[in-house]
């Protein structure tokens, strides 16, 4: 659940502060951007300094990184992964492909604008973004969390029908359980 910082509840401020410093990424390299994650996470750039680390399953994760293009086949799995994640959860769009299709703008198999299918909290520019850019993206996300503005999950819940409509438009065979969360 998402709270607004302006509501001024001290408990929210504490919650957001805590969330901000513990961002676990679900280990799903959906696209080529995943290649910059190992350098980001390991000794050279050491993203653990920010409380960022990988998590094996979506159930324990807070952040879904969409590392670039999403093939339609992957989109289906990504939606399922996202819906299995528990609040608080955030989506980071990684690189050009998530914004406007990137270099696969004319491919028949990749979705072009990620925000039609999943609520994206932060986009990182680049193809692919350097570790510095990745860290900046996380810092931006942390700022949003602290300000109580990273409410993509809330948006998703509220506009689920719209998202579903878009998702079903590209996923021809929709055989997925619905999660309540």
């Amino acid at each position: 659940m998402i709270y607004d910082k302006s509501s001024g509840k001290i408990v929210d401020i504490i919650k957001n502060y805590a969330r901000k410093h513990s961002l676990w990424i679900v280990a799903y390299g959906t696209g080529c951007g995943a290649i910059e994650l190992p350098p980001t996470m390991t000794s050279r750039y050491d993203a653990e300094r920010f409380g960022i680390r990988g998590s094996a399953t979506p159930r324990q994760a807070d952040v879904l990184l969409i590392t670039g293009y999403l093939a339609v086949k992957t989109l289906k799995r990504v939606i399922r992964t996202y819906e299995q994640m528990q609040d608080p959860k955030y989506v980071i769009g990684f690189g050009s492909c998530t914004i406007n299709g990137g270099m696969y703008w004319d491919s028949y198999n990749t979705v072009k604008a990620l925000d039609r299918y999943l609520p994206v909290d932060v986009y990182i520019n680049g193809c692919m973004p350097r570790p510095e850019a990745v860290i900046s993206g996380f810092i931006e996300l942390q700022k949003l969390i602290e300000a109580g503005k990273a409410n993509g999950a809330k948006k998703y819940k509220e506009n689920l029908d719209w998202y579903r409509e878009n998702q079903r438009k590209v996923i021809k065979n929709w055989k997925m359980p619905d999660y309540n969360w």
Partner: protein
Amino acid sequence: MREKETTLYLGPQHPGVTGNMMVKLKVAGDTVVKAETHVGYLHRAFEKLMEQRTWMQSFPIVCRICVPEPDPNEENLARAIEEIEGREVPERAKYIRVMILELSRLAAYMLWMGGQAGTAGLYTVPQWSVGDRDYIIDLFEELTGGRIYHMYIWAGGVRRDLPEGFADKVLRTMDYLESRLPEYDKLFFENAIFQKRAKGVGIIDKDKALEWGVVGPPLRGCGIKHDVRIDEPYEVYDKLDFVVPTHEGGDVWSRAMVRRQEMEQSISIIRQVIDKMPAGEYYNKVPNPLNWYVPEGDAYVKTESARGEFGYYAVSDGGLKPRRVHVRGPAYVHGVSLLEKILVGANISDVAFIMNSLGVCPPEIER
């Protein structure tokens, strides 16, 4: 008593698999009875996209075909075009290309080391090897302007000459990496855990290896000495002095040792290249890319990438755009038919481990 068979889906969201792919396993107890690979999660239709783009416009997209090691793609496409066109490449460009290919091989092995160790539960190794790999990436950044996707090799040569003082930097980095290798030995290759996990696991039948289309380190891990750099030397590999290490056994351990020894060879090749690199032109200009009609013809070219034979079959119909470019990634065979064969009988916990040892790279399977 026969145990009940269960179906397990390993991936596509799984920390151990080598990318966005899935292996459907039928297991009895914790032994794999049947394995079926499912790929296509990274399909971007490169070959279709290349038919929409001119030859020159294809260069920026081909490097995306294999993410950990993009350079063989650029080099292959460039060489395919050069073969169709009959275009000469300046000697210096050839040396620069070899340097890049070897640097990228090193980088790919460092990344592989991290993955292989990670799937064995050794988490210090990736911290080291991926961190050290970054020094090679820094070299790439300085030379090509990009960390991961270099877009530096193109038809006719390379895009820019070496920056000033670059050769010294390469040599310094090589010295550093060489000094690190014994430490990796101690930490990883001699590690009892790794040896115990790797020996006798994921065995490829030596007699069948050639017929099954096994290439690269997995083939040399079976004790068969084949390497495109020797069999069909491209660029200037015939002028360089190096050995192709082999290892009997055909298991994960042998493959790891082959890679370990090749890292030394790569360092030696890079030193030789820098030593022998002639001065002169680095680019034999192609016509204006808006009006570049490549004559009719076809060519199959291949490179030895970190995972094995990387082939490009390119067909030109005399037009502005390729008629067809078909990519043969080494993982195409390793990741589908071979994997399905050698996973049978393996332990579940070894599946990701074996996949890593084959260097399965999904983006080059489905492209």
